[in-house]
């Protein structure tokens, strides 16, 4: 398991260049260009369960979701950063990619440190120091637990339809 470490204000163009936004939409189309202008080594060498560590404002810029879809598709366990840009954060919830706001963990990390992550128990360990993963509100956890926003929405729509049908049936004499 490797930690890919980057700095502050890593923007969406660095994570996935805008010139591909209207030609690459599927995970397979996205993967080869992931982090292309930030770290040309990344796309070819990233392995499942690797982690990304970064500074503040990770994912700033465009609303494009290819960076999130791509990071999820290559199997990144989580992005641990000092802070995240708003749309990127929302997008990660929608795709079920784990983002961890943990400035102290980022500061604690030195090259070669062993990093362990336990999302269920809610901690990330860097070297010999353990940091808590901030908890998400229940409304948001429900989306992530459903496997992302689309499955969550479809469940909700089917439930609502079921209820409406049930309601109509019971109102009959």
């Amino acid at each position, binding site marked *: 398991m490797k930690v890919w470490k980057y700095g502050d204000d890593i923007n969406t163009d660095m994570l996935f260049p805008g010139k591909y936004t209207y030609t690459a939409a599927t995970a397979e189309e996205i993967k080869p260009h992931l982090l292309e202008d930030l770290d040309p080594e990344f796309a070819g060498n990233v392995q499942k369960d690797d982690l990304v560590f970064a500074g503040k404002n990770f994912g700033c810029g465009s609303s494009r979701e290819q960076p999130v879809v791509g990071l999820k598709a290559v199997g990144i366990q989580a992005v641990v950063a000092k*802070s995240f840009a708003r749309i990127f954060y929302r997008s990660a919830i929608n795709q079920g990619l784990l983002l961890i706001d943990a400035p102290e963990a980022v500061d604690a990390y030195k090259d070669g440190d062993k990093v362990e992550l336990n999302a269920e128990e809610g901690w990330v360990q860097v070297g010999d120091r353990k940091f808590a993963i901030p908890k998400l509100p229940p409304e948001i956890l429900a989306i992530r637990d459903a496997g992302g926003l689309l499955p969550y929405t479809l469940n909700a729509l089917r439930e609502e339809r079921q209820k409406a049908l049930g309601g109509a049936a019971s109102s009959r004499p």
Partner: protein
Amino acid sequence: MGMTFAEKVLAKRSGKDSVVPGEIVIVEPDYLLMHDNVAAIVGKIDAELKEFSVARHDMPVIVLDHVIPAVSEKTALNHQKARQFAKEHDIIHFYDVGEGVCHQIMVEKCLAMPGRIVVGSDSHTCSYGVVGAFGTGIDRTEAAALLLRGKLWLKVPETIKITLKGKLRPPVSAKDLVLTIIGDIGADGANYAAVEYHGNVASLSMDERFTISNMGVEMGAKIAVFPVDEVTLSSPCAKKTKPEEYEPVWADPDAHYVRELEYDLVKIEPVVACPHKVDNVKPVTEIEGLEFQQFLLGTCTNGRLSDLEEAADILKGKHVPPHVRLLVLPASKDVLEEALEKGIITTLSRAGGIVLPPGCGPCLGAHQGVLAPGERCLGTANRNFKGRMGCADAEIYLASPATIAASAITGRMTDPRKVYQEVHK
């Protein structure tokens, strides 16, 4: 205690008396904006659209603007899919290629109006703060879910209050002001927060406010909003729209702010955002003489009539040097036509300007002015990220229309005040 603009809008629209920052509310937005990415959005839910259809036919707004006219079979297919979707689902608000940039269309066609909530699958949806609307960006997946269900969650943001004093001294403009603010507070200075502009906003035209709201996301803001005043109410949309169809909302005097800033507009100087971050802001005078190969005048940030006019005033009777490109990108067809009627386009063309079709043009690096390695572009757009204009080994600088025009005359970074004084002698 009083409420901020964001708190009031979100409380009202979620059926609550009051809300507090951090609270999550469910709202039904008035509009969902999508552009060329509508093809990818509906592509995610082709089967589900057959099962559930769209929640509301009058909610989606589709504007084809990002890669127009199509540059490849793939982008042509995207546009085709957008048109098919609009037709099959009776989408009322559909604007085909050539109408303009989506954000300009939302405001120009009176869709973004005071008090309304608009979400869009584009980060610059924050632009609608110009008219006192709650506008914010979401991703494609969220747009797809919203198409089906018609509602989404929003977290009530903290609010930052920015009070403006005095008046800008031309040719110093709104772009210089907003770049100065971003330079001061940083690209994440307003992360997750709403930004409210207070004070002497009456001194700013709608075009100037648009530029400032548009750049809100470059400081991380969720929304960047102006009060509805006489300037707003004298705009064509306020006159055309029935008063009961929109509702001006503004913060209470005793609302709580997480941070308060004050800017004296008299002190704002011409500035430029240097590569590769929007908050890398310097006075123009610090890099005077720096050579550029391409100039970009326009975009959704500075592509309105007053922007083009300001540049034309400076460029009148002059011509860009050989080996320098001046790209002119009006924000919409309406802007283009007005600029044609006023002779502004003729002036810009005679100065060497290349007029592009109203749309996003080269701003996102997909076509129409991609840079070569080693080249520099000075533009009025909103982002200067590495690779943004299609080449990671090029440099992008951002400034006001006046600075771009003044610099295009020599191909070198020029303080617009010098040229402006010459023109207005």
